């Protein structure tokens, strides 16, 4: 299990050496990145089998926690690390200027994302988060258009404010407990962080890490960034990076900040996210921004789900998150060429029947139409919400249903345009071959999961139960008890 560090170290090493490799041989420079990611994906899949006996903690440098940094490998962490690595491989940036630098950034994303999923130390998480942020800035700006630069700048400013606030939150946590190791924080939290200092620290960390998770209200950067970034980058951001940030917040909630006020804050912000996201998507007039706002709404649903205390909430949220991780990238890939106003999409079905069909399938799953997985995920959330006895949770359930209705409206408005061709109107371009292939792969996976629903659900539930078990986390890491 020691080799899980390779998922972080190898991509980083290759990224550092890529300019040197490229000078030696252009061919090697072009394929070194995907080759390394293939290798690390294989390592990750092999290690998945080793997790049969429960999660494993690795002490970096051989130093016992809390002196050193620990890496905590449970099924959720390894799953996310694999998702980042394989996702980057699948959505490898192509085209655009400066292929070498883009490849470097993609490799760094794979390494940094894996590390973010696996880390077990609060400040280490913060540094990984910043690394992912800088890589994203580079990837978004790689489009090269002035609008992309301006969108990146806006994202950067909001993200920097969030990061500084998160750092202040870390300062408060460190002041109260004297440690940064998540397991030891879990041990000390009930007596040291169960006060206003703890709550404020949680809110600061929530807002800081929530920028990437498109939390309300720090999601002002979302529409412009998705409108100006390339298809693959949008897919990576929406599908994977947002989930990484979300899971960080969830881990903090499970391990460190167990007080009900923290759950309430997340619930309220989640409701606001669903409302603002779905309404804005309903009013949007170009496809990419519509999908971006819809993402905000879906992430709001996830925040609501994770704010339900106990393993049930983690299970529901995880189901929605995994479903979103497959559907949204595919939608963004299809929309890469369809970035115009929705009026211009008329007749797309004739140009690319596969693309239009896929879009309809993905939209149906997103709205939550049985028997597609999206339906089961949303049902799980609604059932868990109804089991809570508080009004705010019932309100959340109502909001989610209303959001689904809005989703149906605007997604079908777009889909119906595909099949309605106006005479004399030039149909939009077909999606690129590579994009279409990747989207078809994801769509096929979605369809396959319909038939494999029972075993898949059982597996996701097992992952969620393991992740929600704070006691097991502390026992596995076993930090040294210090006076």
């Amino acid at each position, binding site marked *: 299990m020691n080799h899980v560090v390779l998922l972080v170290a190898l991509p980083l090493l290759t990224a550092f050496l890529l300019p040197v490799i490229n000078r030696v041989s252009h061919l090697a420079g072009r394929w070194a990145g995907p080759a390394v990611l293939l290798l690390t994906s294989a390592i990750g899949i092999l290690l998945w089998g080793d997790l049969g006996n429960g999660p494993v903690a690795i002490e970096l440098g051989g130093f016992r926690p809390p002196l050193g940094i620990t890496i905590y490998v449970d099924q959720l962490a390894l799953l996310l690390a694999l998702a980042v690595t394989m996702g980057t491989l699948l959505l490898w940036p192509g085209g655009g200027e400066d292929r070498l630098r883009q490849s470097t950034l993609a490799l760094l994303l794979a390494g940094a994302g894996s590390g973010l999923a696996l880390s077990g130390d609060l*400040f280490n998480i913060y*540094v990984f988060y*910043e690394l992912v942020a*800088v890589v994203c*800035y*580079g990837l978004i*700006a790689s489009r090269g*258009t*002035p*609008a992309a*630069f*301006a*969108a*990146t*700048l*806006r994202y*950067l*400013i909001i993200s*920097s*404010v969030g990061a*500084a*606030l998160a*750092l*202040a939150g*870390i*300062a*408060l946590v*460190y*002041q109260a407990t*004297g440690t*940064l190791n998540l397991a030891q924080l879990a041990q000390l939290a009930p007596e040291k962080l169960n006060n206003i200092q703890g709550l404020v620290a949680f809110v600061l960390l929530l807002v800081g890490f929530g920028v990437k998770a498109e939390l309300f209200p720090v999601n002002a950067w979302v529409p*412009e960034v998705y*409108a*100006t970034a390339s298809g693959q980058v949008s897919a990576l951001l929406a599908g994977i990076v947002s989930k990484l940030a979300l899971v960080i917040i969830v881990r903090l909630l499970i391990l460190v900040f167990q007080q009900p006020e923290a759950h309430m804050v997340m619930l309220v912000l989640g409701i606001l996210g669903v409302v603002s996201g779905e309404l804005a998507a*309903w*009013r*949007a*007039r*170009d496809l*990419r921004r519509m999908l971006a706002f819809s993402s905000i709404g879906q992430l709001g649903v996830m925040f609501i789900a994770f704010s339900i205390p106990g393993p049930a909430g983690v299970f529901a949220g995880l189901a929605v998150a995994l479903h979103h991780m497959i559907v949204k990238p595919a939608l963004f890939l299809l929309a890469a060429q369809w*970035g*115009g*106003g929705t*009026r*211009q999409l008329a007749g797309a079905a004739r140009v690319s029947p596969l693309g239009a069909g896929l879009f309809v399938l993905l939209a149906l799953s997103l709205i939550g139409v049985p028997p597609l997985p999206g339906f089961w995920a949303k049902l799980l959330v609604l059932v868990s919400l109804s089991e809570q006895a508080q009004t705010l949770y019932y309100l959340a359930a109502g909001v989610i249903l209303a959001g689904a209705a809005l989703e149906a409206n605007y997604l079908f408005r777009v889909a119906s345009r595909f099949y309605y061709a106006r005479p004399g109107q030039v149909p939009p371009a077909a999606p690129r071959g590579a994009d279409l292939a990747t989207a078809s792969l994801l769509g096929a996976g979605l369809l396959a999961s319909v038939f494999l629903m029972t075993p898949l659900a059982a597996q996701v539930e097992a992952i969620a139960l393991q992740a929600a078990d704070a006691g097991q986390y502390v026992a596995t890491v076993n930090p040294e008890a210090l006076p």
Partner: protein
Amino acid sequence: MLDATLIFYVAAVGLILIGIAGIVLSAHLVRVIFGIVLLEAGANLLLLLATYREGAAAPIFVKGAFPAVMADPVPQALVLTAIVIGVGILALTLSLALRVHRAYGTLDIREIRQRMEQDIADAAGIDMPTSSEAPAPVYAHEDGRS
């Protein structure tokens, strides 16, 4: 009452507040960037303050021995990391500001935002939203008007 911890705490929180105020209230991009720098400085100071010990010496082996009461080395290492991260991101911010200025000819945040929306709308072939609060027309008319 005026012990060191209080002074530093007020300084750190003050820097954070001034930084946020600068970012939120400024119209000029460079002032926003200064606000970010101040905000990060405040957060770093707060981090250093977390385990401040009065009268502790630096944890360095001097003249054959370590000092009796040593300061906490962990926040020092953390702030070192945070400062370097800040510098890296600042360099990237300035590069972006340079390119934006070259493209749009202005460093006013509001103008940049408008030009960016204009560019996005042009690329998408739709009209620019007149206001972010105005509802977009839901149904398009048959002849293309909306």
